[in-house]
């Protein structure tokens, strides 16, 4: 898997963006998924690791958040969503200059489908729901970015 480089922040004018940050500087994660069960599971799992989470239901809501100068350290991006799917939202975020870690999550098991999603600009791609082992490795990756 390719890993992104660069800081986890949007390339907007200096000081003009609002970084979602928890008490003590915990990493922030945007969960983008149309499945309410996955949103709930991932939110609770990430909160247990001390991550600050925010949830939206589709790619457009995610893009709109970043456009409003709100950024997150990591984005968990579902592949198939109504209104705007994961690949499209990922492409838009990268085109905006978003360098946050974007992790694709999909219930599609085929390697070709994951690779196609990766091509949109993901740092990593995993099957959902995520396991605690995978979340641990994602946090380690986030720490490396900082």
């Amino acid at each position: 898997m390719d890993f992104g480089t660069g800081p986890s922040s949007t390339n907007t004018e200096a000081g003009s963006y609002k970084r979602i940050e928890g008490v003590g500087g915990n990493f922030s994660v945007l969960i983008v998924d149309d499945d309410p069960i996955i949103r709930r599971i991932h939110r609770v799992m990430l909160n247990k690791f001390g991550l600050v989470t925010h949830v939206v239901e589709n790619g457009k809501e995610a893009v709109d958040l970043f456009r409003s100068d709100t950024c997150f350290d990591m984005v968990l991006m579902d592949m198939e969503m109504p209104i705007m799917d994961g690949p499209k939202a990922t492409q838009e975020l990268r085109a905006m200059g978003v360098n946050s870690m974007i992790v694709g999550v999909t219930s599609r098991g085929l390697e070709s489908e994951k690779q196609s999603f990766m091509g949109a600009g993901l740092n990593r791609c995993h099957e959902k729901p995520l396991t605690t082992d995978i979340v641990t490795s994602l946090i380690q990756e986030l720490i490396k970015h900082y």
Partner: protein
Amino acid sequence: MPASNADTDVEIMNSFTQPSLNSCHISSAMERNQLHRQLANMRKSLFDQGFLDEQFIQLEELQDDANPNFVEEVVTLYYRDSTRLILNIEQALDKSPLDLTKLDSLMHQFKGSSSSIGAKKVKLECTQFKEYCKAANGEGCKRTFLQVKKEYGTLKKKLEAYFQMARQVGPVETACRPK
């Protein structure tokens, strides 16, 4: 998960040596122990009979003081959300000719949700359904969907009974917690 049977047996034995305890406390402790065992056996059979898989355990591991009813909440959410999906699949199966692409997509969503709670048998039937979609076998899809609904309903009944028992065990334990 409840403490080992050995621990609870020791607790019961110790209760005999404390003069301040009466037969009501001993009886409650033994009843509590029996309920714990029943709950553990119910849980074990759900896995042994293939109704649940490892993902359910992942959910259990997320349950804590901050989210004390997390597993039941997620399962409730699943059954509430999947009602809509099942209805959509039924409506799609009533159409002629069948839109197999749409059916596959709907079932993919349902399979994903079922996987999230560890609904192993439901997931297997969903996979079979998707195979029939790929093979353009409409009759196979319709037959398998009956199986999907059957497993879905069976699991629902079993989980309702399990959570009801878990709720019964919970308050009893709290009420009789030793000082």
